């Protein structure tokens, strides 16, 4: 039989540890105790037809990255074909991990993307020490590439497996999240919701999707363009349901999906639990070859 004193000591110790260690969480938990039903006043709810029409009008090309059958420059993972005179990008503590490289001529041959330069090479590097900050991916745009592989310097966080990629042209429609519409408030039937998701022909959310251009396939509800603009201006994101300033919304239209990189066991990439990296750039910056001001977001399950 367990004595009262022992039980008491265990209970009291747990209570004391919890209160001292997690005071904020306890206060927050008490506050949310009675909160079950999220309340929201819905004004001007758009109809299914209006939303579908808007989505169709915004369809953009998107390039799905698939395994290449022929020798190409563009690839995910491995070692970069980076000119030796260029310094390997370094973070605060160590050299960055190489993510991907693309020949813009190969990209433009697959689909004419008006906001990307016609020539040059893009290199993507990942900074593990800045993981889940908007500059965790660094992009370099260079005029000339190297034909030889440049092995990663010592101390990089990870070397991903290599996959040469070709581009498959798809049509991408914005999600309800991108449009700033909360899916649940539309009261759509499952078939209506599926038909909205089927306006483009990008693979379903559950599939691996590495993509360039088009719209992001979000895992969590977030207006990514607004998030990018807020991040760019060092502003806090607007609260859910709060009106977004018109000027901010207009500026958010400039953001383009430069790269969506999925968790992929073939490449040994894993972003959170089955998550994705979304690298965005402003169209006007990309046009002039300025990829220094990208914003990267991450979603996972």
């Amino acid at each position, binding site marked *: 039989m367990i004595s009262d004193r022992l039980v008491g000591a265990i209970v009291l110790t747990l209570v004391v540890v919890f209160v001292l260690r997690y005071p904020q969480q306890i206060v927050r938990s008490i506050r949310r105790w009675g909160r079950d039903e999220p309340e929201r006043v819905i004004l001007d709810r758009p109809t299914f037809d209006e939303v579908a029409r808007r989505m169709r009008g915004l369809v953009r090309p998107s390039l799905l990255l698939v395994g290449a059958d022929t020798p190409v420059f563009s690839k995910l993972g491995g070692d970069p074909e980076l000119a030796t005179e260029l310094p390997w990008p370094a973070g605060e503590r160590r050299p960055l991990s190489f993510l991907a490289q693309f020949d813009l001529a190969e990209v433009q041959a697959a689909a004419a993307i008006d906001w990307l330069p016609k020539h040059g090479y893009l290199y993507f590097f990942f900074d593990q020490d800045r*993981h889940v900050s908007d500059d965790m991916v660094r992009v370099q745009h260079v005029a000339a590439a190297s034909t030889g592989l440049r092995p990663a310097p010592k101390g990089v966080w990870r070397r991903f497996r290599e996959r040469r990629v070709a581009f498959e042209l798809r049509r991408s429609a914005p999600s309800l999240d991108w449009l700033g519409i909360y899916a649940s408030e539309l009261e759509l039937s499952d078939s209506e919701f599926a038909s909205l998701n089927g306006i483009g022909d990008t693979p379903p959310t559950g599939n691996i999707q590495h993509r360039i251009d088009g719209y992001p396939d979000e895992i969590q509800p977030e207006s990514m363009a607004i998030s990018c603009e807020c991040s760019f201006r060092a502003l806090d994101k607007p609260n859910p349901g709060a009106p977004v300033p018109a000027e901010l919304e207009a500026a958010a239209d400039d953001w383009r999906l430069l790269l969506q990189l999925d968790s992929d066991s073939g490449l040994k990439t894993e972003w959170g639990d089955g998550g994705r990296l979304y690298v965005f750039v402003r169209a006007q910056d990309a046009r002039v070859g300025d990829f220094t001001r990208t914003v990267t977001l991450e979603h996972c399950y």
Partner: protein
Amino acid sequence: MASDSFARGGRARSVPDPDRKGYDEMIRHHRAHMAASERRSGSPNHSPHGAVDYLAAGIVHVLNGPREARQEVERGHLLKGIVHGATSAADLEFGRSVVNGVRRGAFKISGPHDWKSVRKWMGEKGLAAEREHVHHWAIPQNGWGKAVPDWIKNQPWNGRPMETTLDHIRTHSRSLKFDLPRFNALERYWNSTPRWWKAANASAAGHAVELTDRPKQGQDASPQGSRRHSR
């Protein structure tokens, strides 16, 4: 008002008790009846038999918890009372969450079970608020969860709405923006698992303590044991 020795704390009556003989006779008769009944059925007749009996006994036990806790405190067993009380609270919270969850759609029976449809369903049923990140707390989407079909893992019961995006970030990694580390195991348990799961855990732990504290079968015949079960 009771007048037996229990009500007097085991002390002898100061005046003659005219009902004592009849009362003792009644108790003897009752015990003989119970023993005969147990011999006939081969098991103690106070045990529930069918599923409905078990359910009813469980509900009665849960509802009786606060009373039992109060009685423990009245007997001077403060800590037992606390354990009983906490267990009862956990039982009631767990029951409330399960009933509420089932009523509101914690199980999405019919498809589709892709994540976006399930997330939309959670919003419609009031299980997650707008823009709230929902975390797969029990069965992950990737890793070993890859082998689990969507209709099992993409269910509202497996989705833990995260109060802030920061909490979701810190469940998986540190937050550089706020210079906060990744949640440790205890913090993940507290912040990233649903309330009903914590209530179920607390309830299970409380009942385990109660079980270890329960007198062995041979002790049940004693007046202490009889009192425990006669309430």
